[in-house]
């Protein structure tokens, strides 16, 4: 029996089976390339019609300048709009240490950053439409430039409210810093998504869900949530 795995196989005369495998591989790659070309051509040739997709879902995630996320909350829109206020943020925004109102819709935020660092933001509300939307924009002294919007829209069939959070920001230390923060679970997108779910939990159940419970892992406490 031929031994394909011995180091000597393939030395001297080329193994015909290995050659056949390489040939088949090249053929597949060629066919794949041809299909890819055809798809690309088809894409550029077609007539685009206006999409109904939310604008924050357009483009590949890696190419987006902003982040958007919606959740269904089983409560009336008016209740949720009323609950979305600075004083209540620390209840569901896990990484928010403090929000200090500076007057005129401007507030100074202290949030937890990667590696135990604290980050300070200064944001001003640019538009607020009762029971519909709140938009904000950071001031020049903010350590991270950011802007965003939270929207409240009736969900169909009496299901409550769609709450959408849209966030754009300049990641500190560029893309690499963003990746590092993501790995440390302190990246604004990760934080925003989780905080949005905490808001939902708080509004629907009256408490923020916690899996805090014992384990045989010495590093964990039975009163702290864990991953």
């Amino acid at each position: 029996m031929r031994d394909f795995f011995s180091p000597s196989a393939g030395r001297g005369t080329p193994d015909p089976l290995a050659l056949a495998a390489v040939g088949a591989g090249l053929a597949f790659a060629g066919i794949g390339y041809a299909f890819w070309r055809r798809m690309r051509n088809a894409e550029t040739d077609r007539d685009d019609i206006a999409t109904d997709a939310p604008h924050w879902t357009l483009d590949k995630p890696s190419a987006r300048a902003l982040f958007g996320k919606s959740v269904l909350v089983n409560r009336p829109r008016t209740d949720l709009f009323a609950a979305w206020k600075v004083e209540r943020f620390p209840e569901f925004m896990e990484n928010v240490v403090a929000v200090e109102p500076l007057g005129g819709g401007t507030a100074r935020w202290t949030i937890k950053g990667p590696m135990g660092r604290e980050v300070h933001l200064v944001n001003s509300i640019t538009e607020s439409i009762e029971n519909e939307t709140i938009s904000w924009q950071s001031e020049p002294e903010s350590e991270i430039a950011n802007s965003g919007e939270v929207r409240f829209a009736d969900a169909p069939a009496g299901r409550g409210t769609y709450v959408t959070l849209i966030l754009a920001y300049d990641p500190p230390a560029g893309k690499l810093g963003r990746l590092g923060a993501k790995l440390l679970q302190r990246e604004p997108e990760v934080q925003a998504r989780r905080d949005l779910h905490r808001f939902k939990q708080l509004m629907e159940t009256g408490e923020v869900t916690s899996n805090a419970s014992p384990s045989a892992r010495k590093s964990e406490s039975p009163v702290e949530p864990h991953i």
Partner: protein
Amino acid sequence: MRAVTWQGRHKISVETVPDPEIVNPRDAILQITSTAICGSDLHLYDGYIPGMRVGDIVGHEFMGEVVEVGSGSTLKKGQRVVVPFTISCGSCFFCEKQQFSACDNSNPSETRDASELLMGHAMGGAFGYAHLTGGYAGGQADYVRVPYSDVGPVIIPDDLPDDDVLFLSDILPTGWHAAVNADIEPGDTVAVWGCGPVGLFTIQSALLLGAGRVIAIDHFPARLRLAKQLGAEILDYKQVDVREALNEMTGGIGPDACIDCVGMESHGFTPDNILDQVKAQYYSVTERPHALRQAILACRKGGRVSIPGVYGGFADKFPLGQLMEKGLTVKSGQTPVQKYSGDLLKMIQDGKFDTTSLVSHHAPLEDAAEMYRHWHGEQNEYTKIILKPGLEKGAIEAKKEMAHV
């Protein structure tokens, strides 16, 4: 406290861990009086369920006495309760639709990302069942923290012993849900794959829901005997070609409904299962769905397939064309336990279910590691194990008739 912990594939140990505490207003703490080992605990034991972490406390079938309550709990200290394995908030879209196992709040923000990545949407929370379902400590322990304790726990009247009601936590409602999902019509022939505890409750439920006959399939004589005792006709797949036998028992058309109470680790020396075994060994597939493949092929055209059996991910060689061409209806899912709790407790009180014949062993919590070994390796002798935190190590009680099977 003492707790049964998962330490890796085929490694279970009883460890001393911190006591649980009240964390949220709606919490309660129970002192466990009885906790069973579930067939799905074997999937954890065999390392088939992704998202387990070393040191996790396992166990999702438990009952006990309320010893502490948060300000928002409706329970009172001293009450005896059985706790559904599914954790449900009671107020989200899904809970309002009574799809309690799909609760959108019980899987916390910290663990839902991974679950969403694998499943498309985050699964609901469950006790002692990996971090994809929330990473909550389970109830094979002296104490357990129960979140949303005003929604799930079933208060048990004093005159009902633990053994009669413990299975309200999972396997009884799971068997019932499996039969409900089979949309049984009066006089139907229903085939049930697997005569483990869920299969045995499915057989009883199918008959209660109007099935004309139930045909049960397994290979362990003790389990087949229990199925027969509960009113099923039985097939030992080691003796017959199951599909041929089912066809010949139904005039060639096949059963009206087929229920897979086996799940992701089918037994059986068949080519498809051997291939699955090899692949699973190298983590290239997550399932060995031989029973489900057979159920789909066996089912009559236009029939129904119900899947209470647990699956974890992507299956190989799934008979999709057969499903489509035969026009089968498939229903599945983790059991929305809270939907059925009240009715099933009443049915237990009315003597509709035999909840105790399947119990083969009572053992101390301290002997959990040994019990998992038996549960895994001796499924003929061990048909259901109940762990008791109160018993002293070594005080294992086997049921007489089971002892010399």
